[in-house]
């Protein structure tokens, strides 16, 4: 897969302009607090084969990722949302691991932006 920027700078700048720089940074903090819970929800839903919970968690992660310009993460979350819990299980949960790794990169990039 082609490696795109972890955080799309144009999207993140537009967010800061819309909400104000301070607010955008507070929103980053909120995301960094909430996202690990969404990843947990995905893992638990995968184990429990809870289709609704899985779809909802993937949906939230997709929507938040796109807000901050984490477009690759957003695209991966979207694929999980569309695929659904059963198909992700069939592929041994590998897409979830890839997602977690991308999230780690996003979290690092956002934290760097936070302290820039």
């Amino acid at each position, binding site marked *: 897969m082609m490696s795109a920027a972890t955080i799309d700078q144009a999207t993140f700048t537009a967010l800061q302009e*819309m909400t104000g720089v301070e607010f955008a940074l507070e*929103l980053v903090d909120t995301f960094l607090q909430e996202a690990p819970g969404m990843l947990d929800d995905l893992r638990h839903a995968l184990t429990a084969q809870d289709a609704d919970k899985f779809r*909802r968690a993937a949906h*939230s992660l*997709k*929507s*938040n990722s796109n*807000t901050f310009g984490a477009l690759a993460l957003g695209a991966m979350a979207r694929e999980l949302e569309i695929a659904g819990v059963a198909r992700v299980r069939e592929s041994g949960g590998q897409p979830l691991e890839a997602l977690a790794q991308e999230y780690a990169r996003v979290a690092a990039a956002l934290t760097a932006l936070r302290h820039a």
Partner: protein
Amino acid sequence: MRELRSGPARLLVVDDNKVNRLLLTRSLEVQGHSVASAENGRVALEMLRRESFDLLLLDMEMPEMDGFQVLEQLVNDRQLHDLPVIVTSSLEGIDNVVRCIELGAEDYLSKPVNPVLLKARIGASLEKKHLRDQQKELVRRFATPEVAQDLQNSGFSLGGKRVHASVMFSDIRDFTALAESQPPEETIELLNTYYALMFDAINSHGGVVTLMMGDGLMSVFGAPMPLPDHGASAVRAAQEMVEMIDLFNLERNGAGKPPINIGIGIASGEMVAGYTGTHERATYTCIGNTVNLAARLETHTKVVHRAILVDQATRSALSERFAVEPLGPVPFKGKAAAVDVFSVDPGQS
């Protein structure tokens, strides 16, 4: 786009996702609105039933009660089914978007929400709500609660339909001379009493006042809701109006004031009825030859010195119990053939 009229609009944001909720709330506050938020559909409905909001921004994917369930509840809620809803979601699948619109959502914005689109859609929604509120207020003043409810349920759709109904025109004879001979406050007070009495008589027989002009009133019986005996209902209303004025004159006489007299013209038949106007101001009205004839009959009451005149179609709808006197054909201005005119005795039915 028009700026906010009466202070900031009050909006409710519903989203289970904290980042989305904070972001949307912030975007709306930056645009000058007052914003409250809820984390799921159940909490949102509780807030909507407790406080008043101008607009709802609704996410679809939510635990406990999702957006579809909220839309379903709103559609079936008398108090809330006019509340404009903008769906803000990143739903996959066009069928989901269609389902939102079918459930009454006014607009759909996909996330992340573009602030320029957000501003435009909210402006348009609030404008539409303002127009609906204005219409509701207008109807509330002019019509019976049943008719008002019916109009509200039909969504005030502009555009007319053909109806069979009876139209009534009424006014106070020589009102201008009377108005000029007394202090203005007294004239306004007289008009207020007169309107209160006439509205009561008209509404209690199923009529709707569609126009007030000085001392003149236009009312319709049989629209917007069908009325099986609209001709007889209009005539009974006319008789009650005359009776009310007689009682009112007794009171005026006691106060040393001159009596007032009214003239009423009624015609029945097919006409076009519906909402007309602009987005700033709309009204319910009826148009057609039947309407013109009713106006001519009202004017003719002054010529023949009768209180209530009706056309042939209205007369045919009256039972034997009404005392009706044929006055023969009258050549009215704008009518090719002379029209048979009938006088109805105000006191008998």
